[in-house]
């Protein structure tokens, strides 16, 4: 048995943002980006060999910028699953995790702790994808478990039965039906139409409307995160984009609405499938408990749009949004980590 003090951590290594929540009160979210200086000048400029999160994005012209995850899982070579790119992505992700864990230790006097973590993975991540998360945590965490991200959200909210969780991230949108047991493959649907898909659509629509405008996906991503809406009501949205070098105010109200709406059909179709294949006696309970989580849940009017669709196709629907959308998955993972009895952790160790 261990005599060390235990630090429990809930971890969400997301495509766009990586989040940790610790039982010592620390919680931190950083963009999942890492930058390595291009040369000695940029190394001096950034003041080190590596730069993380917002700093990496800010200095993107002077660093090689990497994002280790794509569509919720670690980057992979198209031909070889364990190719060079995959190995590099694994190293970068481990470095990112180390950075996050360092935040957890910032206010800890005792540095000799036993670190336990639960990492959220996309609902239908393959066994290999989940193994990648274990590899990333190897040498960074003392004990680690992997759990489905939407399941973590449900566990954190203590809604373990008759609920449908929709976790809209950057890379994937996970739908998960909860019925009092660990959700299986039939209970979960993953679509790749999520935040990144909205960004891509938004970029194309602006390019089409303002052909001379000069902008990057990062510029419109931030604007989207602050203003995303599919509501018909609301004020006009203007973004300042350089046209021939001159900042020009561009009306992007309808473009942003259209881009955000692009993810709705897959979500509602997923809801329909999961409700229709559920036990008929409990279908009404499921329809009453649709919960939106993840960064995408902040799109204004999305829950109403889904409710309207559910009313049309399923007769009834009640959709609610989690309050702390960014941290909901990591919060649940932390609760899971804390609730896990010591003997279960030990059992896992003996099987290593």
């Amino acid at each position: 048995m261990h005599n060390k003090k235990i630090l429990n951590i809930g971890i969400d290594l997301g495509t766009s943002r990586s989040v940790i929540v610790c039982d010592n009160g620390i919680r931190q979210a950083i963009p999942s980006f890492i930058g390595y200086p291009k040369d000695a000048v940029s190394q001096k400029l950034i003041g080190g060999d590596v730069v993380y999160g917002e700093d990496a994005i800010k200095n993107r012209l002077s660093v090689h910028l990497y994002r280790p995850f794509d569509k919720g899982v670690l980057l992979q070579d198209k031909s070889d699953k364990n190719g060079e790119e995959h190995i590099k992505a694994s190293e970068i992700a481990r470095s990112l995790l180390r950075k996050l864990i360092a935040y957890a230790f910032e206010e800890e006097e005792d540095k000799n702790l036993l670190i336990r973590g639960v990492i959220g993975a996309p609902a239908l991540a393959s066994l290999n994808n989940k193994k990648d998360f274990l590899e990333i945590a190897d040498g960074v965490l003392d004990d680690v478990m992997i759990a489905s991200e939407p399941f973590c959200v449900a566990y954190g909210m203590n809604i373990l039965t008759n609920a449908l969780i929709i976790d809209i991230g950057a890379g994937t949108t996970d739908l998960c039906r909860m019925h009092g047991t660990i959700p299986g493959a039939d209970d979960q649907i993953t679509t790749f139409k999520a935040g990144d898909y909205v960004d891509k659509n938004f970029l194309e629509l602006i390019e089409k409307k303002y052909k001379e405008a000069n902008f990057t996906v990062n510029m419109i991503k931030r604007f989207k995160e602050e203003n995303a809406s599919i509501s018909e009501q609301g004020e006009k949205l203007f973004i300042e984009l350089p046209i021939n070098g001159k900042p020009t105010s561009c009306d992007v109200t309808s473009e942003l609405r259209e881009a955000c709406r692009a993810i709705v059909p897959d979500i509602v179709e997923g809801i329909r499938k999961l409700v229709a294949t559920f036990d008929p006696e409990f279908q009404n309970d499921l329809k009453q408990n649709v919960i939106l989580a993840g960064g995408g849940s902040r799109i204004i009017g999305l829950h109403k749009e889904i409710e309207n669709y559910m009313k049309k196709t399923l007769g009834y629907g009640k959709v609610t949004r989690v309050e702390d959308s960014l941290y909901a998955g990591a919060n649940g993972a932390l609760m899971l980590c804390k609730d896990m009895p010591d003997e279960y952790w030990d059992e896992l160790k003996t099987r290593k």
Partner: protein
Amino acid sequence: MGQLMNMIIKTSNYSVAAFEYAGLVSYSYAKRSGLALKSGISKMGPPIKRVTVTPLMYCGQKIGGIGKVFKRKNVIEERLLSIVEKLDSIDSRLANIENMGVSVAERPKLVKEKKPLNDGKKMLLKAIVSENILLRQPQEGMQ
């Protein structure tokens, strides 16, 4: 001679009467002015007293108060000294205890006890552990 004597006696009598009258008039003036002075002073007295004597009395009181404050400060200093002495004696006792091989006990830490889980949750957690055990198994039999 007889007439001269009468004239001298009459003259002296008149002189005495004149003196007596002058004395009475002077007395009368003196008495009147004295009364006037008395009534004036009796009217002026209280305001003058208020203006002059009361501040002096107040100053007197304050001077007495300052004295008290100085006295109190001395009391505080005495108390502080006694506390310092007590702390010194505790320090020396602790040093003595440590020299004798007895160490000071660490501050007790709050032990975070896990809340008891119901059977349903235990089953769920057990299922997650089983999944994770499966993840750790070698490549053989994987998806």
